């Protein structure tokens, strides 16, 4: 087959040898990175599953099995000359993977009858060693002496059924599907170099790829090949189901193990005649009635295991359907290899007996530091590390993991507490006195907002009530024979202000840094310097004084923490509290704490804002730097925590928007522009160059945002 050329397809051995230099002038192919955003959506739409698309290395042709939450595809695809065809390859690979879920591979039931086959599965199977955790597929595979071979045969049968199913269901892909299958056929090993079992297995794979070519086989294989064809025929039918694949697999398995196990060169080849009529005319052989099949086949000298070359666009089912305990570590090991591209690929597994028994054990070191929890099976993913709320004032929130593109459930504990007041509201009063000259100006601004909110529009063309003056004038005009005005209504736009605002202020350790000294040498707190936190506290004091006059509902919260189990959410003033001396005296007790885990703090603020009945809801996040915490994305490597934290924060801000809250981020970090652009995609933010501006700027912003 390799000698044949297929238009548009590169010679198959390029990828395997890695000898691509001659072809550099050709299309560079498609990278998974390039196609993943679009095809990720495509796969999710088709399968209804959230799954990460992960790459494996270019030089390594070893195919990895998928899990329910992660799909692995080649990092780069340049099998075809045209970029579009390489894209199509990825698309078909994903369509095939989605078909496993849509077409019900994992919904296999031992007891459901097949549609096109009489049952070979023993009727007593249910009573067989079924234990609680085994899936039906796993019990099914325990029927076979050569379990690994059975899994492979079943996979080929199921692939055939699903590919045909997908071609019918997705008419738009039919042509593309055929093209990819043709290309896959083009890469198959030559039949003449294979022993009888391997050759028949190869025939099976080619039939599953809808091969139209006649096979040339030694006479020994003619009859089994025709029988194989007959067995696989029903899987092409529209209503074939996974149980049909299982029954077909039992028969194909019998045909394979019924052959002598010897080396190649067992007679001259001649074309097998396999017209549909001939295949239909075959009478079915007598299949074994007892399973596991009698010892005979097992003992016949299985020195050589049956081997099948992979079809590149199809997936390996891996541990997904076996539910096999042994499969856990194996899976993880494979993943580790995937992460460490330079590790040696494992030897081809030739273990003839129990699946997994002779797999090399994963080495200790990688397992010990393997923190890729999200790569594992769903169950492990969801049941590891979840937190529970055990007191009234702590709340558990999820966290967004952008690598897995999923939420980590019950991940962060937010502990809410009121800041304890000191004896007198010294800080508050000092601040108001210090900003005394500024205060009338600020308060004027706020009173103007209040007045604007109460406006009535008279002489409107439309409104709830008649404007009496205008109506009378209009009547006079009418009686006097002049044309009357129709602007005789009073309209009341929007009512008074209906605003709830939450200020969320960073109280992390970095706010202890000294700020630039003030130009006018204002010495507010009996110290010759002021910290960033001082400015935040002063701003809080000014806010409280101003907003109290305006009558808006507002809350001021400080946050910090140390790790996901301990996010501190400290209440300076809650929504339902009125400003009092006691509350003003809380400001004195705000001290710098630890880290800045913004996500959970934002989520808790959203929770608080949800409880407010207001037309306009605003969340103002005031921070001195980017989000950071001890266990905030570090599991993905050294520099991953920046992206992780920023993505979680962005997700939390988006959640706020979805909850009808307008988020706004104000940062006092001169490098803020770098990450804020990503973090606040579509969300308003501002970077302050000079911290001295914080109080006035925030009050001005408040006015524009709530207007």
């Amino acid at each position, binding site marked *: 087959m390799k000698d044949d050329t297929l238009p548009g397809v590169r010679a198959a051995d390029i990828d395997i040898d890695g000898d691509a230099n001659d072809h550099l002038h050709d299309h560079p192919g498609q990278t998974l990175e390039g196609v993943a955003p679009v095809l990720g959506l495509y796969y999710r739409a088709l399968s209804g599953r959230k799954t990460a698309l992960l790459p494996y290395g270019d030089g390594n042709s070893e195919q990895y099995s998928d899990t329910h939450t992660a799909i692995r595809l080649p990092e780069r695809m340049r099998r075809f000359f045209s970029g579009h065809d390489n894209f199509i390859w990825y698309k078909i690979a994903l369509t095939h993977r989605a078909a496993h879920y849509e077409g019900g591979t994992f919904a296999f039931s031992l007891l459901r009858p097949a549609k096109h086959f009489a049952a070979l599965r023993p009727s007593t199977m249910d009573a067989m060693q079924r234990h609680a955790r085994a899936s039906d597929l796993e019990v099914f595979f325990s029927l076979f002496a050569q379990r690994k071979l059975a899994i492979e045969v079943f996979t080929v049968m199921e692939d055939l059924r699903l590919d045909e199913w997908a071609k019918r269901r997705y*008419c738009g892909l039919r042509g593309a599907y055929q093209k990819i299958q043709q290309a896959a056929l083009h890469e198959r090993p030559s039949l003449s170099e294979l022993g009888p079992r391997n050759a028949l297995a190869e025939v099976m794979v080619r039939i599953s790829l809808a091969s139209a070519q006649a096979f040339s086989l030694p006479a020994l294989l003619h009859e089994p090949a025709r029988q194989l064809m007959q067995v696989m025929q029903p899987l092409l039918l529209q209503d074939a189901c996974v149980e049909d694949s299982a029954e077909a697999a039992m028969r194909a398995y019998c045909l394979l193990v019924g052959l002598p196990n010897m080396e190649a060169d067992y007679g001259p080849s001649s074309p097998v005649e396999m017209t549909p009529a001939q295949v239909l005319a075959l009478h079915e052989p007598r299949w074994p009635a007892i399973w596991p099949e009698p010892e005979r086949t097992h003992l016949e000298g299985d020195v050589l295991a049956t081997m099948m070359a992979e079809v590149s666009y199809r997936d390996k089912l891996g541990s997904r359907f076996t539910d096999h305990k042994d499969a856990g570590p194996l899976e993880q090991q494979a993943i580790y290899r995937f992460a460490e591209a330079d590790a040696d690929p494992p030897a081809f597994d030739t273990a003839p007996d129990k699946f997994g028994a002779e797999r090399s054990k994963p080495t200790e070191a990688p397992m010990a530091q393997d923190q890729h929890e999200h790569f594992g099976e769903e169950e492990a993913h969801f049941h590891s590390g979840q937190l529970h709320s055990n007191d009234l004032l702590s709340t558990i929130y999820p966290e967004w993991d952008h690598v897995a593109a999923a939420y980590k459930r019950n991940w962060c504990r937010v502990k809410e507490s009121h800041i304890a007041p000191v004896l007198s509201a010294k800080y508050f009063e000092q601040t108001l006195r210090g900003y005394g000259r500024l205060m009338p100006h600020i308060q004027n601004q706020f009173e103007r907002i209040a007045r604007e909110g109460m406006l009535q529009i008279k002489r409107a063309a439309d409104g709830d*009530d008649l404007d009496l003056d205008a*109506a009378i004038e209009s009547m006079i005009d009418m009686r006097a024979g002049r044309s009357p005005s129709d602007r005789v209504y009073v309209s009341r736009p929007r009512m008074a202000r209906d605003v709830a605002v939450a200020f969320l202020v960073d109280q992390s350790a970095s706010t202890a840094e000294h700020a630039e000294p003030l130009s006018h040498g204002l010495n507010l707190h009996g110290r010759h310097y002021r910290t960033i936190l001082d400015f935040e506290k002063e701003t809080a004091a000014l806010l409280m004084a101003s907003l109290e006059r305006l009558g808006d509902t507002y809350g001021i919260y400080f946050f910090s923490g140390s790790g996901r189990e301990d996010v501190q959410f400290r209440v300076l003033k809650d929504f339902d509290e009125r400003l009092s001396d006691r509350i003003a005296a809380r400001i004195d007790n705000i001290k710098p704490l630890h880290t800045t885990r913004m996500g959970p703090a934002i989520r808790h603020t959203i929770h608080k804002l*949800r409880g407010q009945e207001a037309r306009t809801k605003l969340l103002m996040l005031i921070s001195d730097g980017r989000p950071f915490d001890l266990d905030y994305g570090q599991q993905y490597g050294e520099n991953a925590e920046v992206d992780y934290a920023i993505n979680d924060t962005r997700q939390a801000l988006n959640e706020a928007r979805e909850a009808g809250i307008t988020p706004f981020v104000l940062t006092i970090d001169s490098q803020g522009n770098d990450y804020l652009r990503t973090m606040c995609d579509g969300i308003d933010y501002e970077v302050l160059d000079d911290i001295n501006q914080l109080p006035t700027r925030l009050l001005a912003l408040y006015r524009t945002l709530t207007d």
Partner: protein
Amino acid sequence: MPPSQFPSPSHALSATQSAAIPIAHGAESYRAVDEPFYLPVSDEVSLFEAAHRERIPVLLKGPTGCGKTRFVEYMAWHLAHKTGGDSAYGLTTVSCHEDLTATDLVGRYLLSSDGTHWIDGPLTRAVKSGGICYLDEVVEARKDTIVVIHSLTDHRRLLPLEKKGELLKAHPDFFLVVSYNPGYQSSLKDLKHSTRQRFVSIEFDYPAQALEQRIIAREAGVGAATAEALALAGVKIRHLDQQNLLEGPSTRLLIYAGRLIAQGVAPRRACDVAIIQAMTDDMLLAKGLRQVIQAIFP
């Protein structure tokens, strides 16, 4: 609104009481002559009938374009036919919006050449004449507006006309239905509990694939294969839920796409303009959706 556009109250009343077709003045009440096409998804018809017999107001909730309004039209027809009437109950529909005030619902004084006179709002007309009053997308209205229906929706069945100083007793056939779309997930757009707890709530969702296929085939007039493909596209695209799209494609959009196809537009193009462009402005998302459509339609 300029006074001239309002009809006189007597005009409005006679119109609702009279014949069979939609009324001319852009209005809110009409009677269906033919049976509206509606395929029941589960027990919503019998629930609605029971609530109607007891005159318990009904709240329909569900995503946009899943058939809430059609269901109300159907029920107006169905209830009248069950009792032997030859045409449907009058159906007064008010599409709620942010600037809708209680005045808009109840009525107002207007000026005319010989003084001021009162004009009933749509709710008052329905209360007087009976029939179904349907407040569509009720959460869009301001909460203080919706409070006017409170006394109508409990045992009192009274509508206070504050400005006239009148208390109006509802017609025995008056029946209130409201709808809203919980998908917006915004506490701004939520009903007051005191309002909500005056209704029995019937939840709507997109019909199952096979049912949706029948609906598309019938409404768009396309063949079974096209309808099947459109229904499949609907199911698949709805997998991209909240996180990617605000709301999945409605049955209505699928029907629009079907109609375009019936008019000779190429299927992929029809889906592009009727479904993808209607749902998102995001380029990447549109590309992903297009891949789904290209897989389903040749």
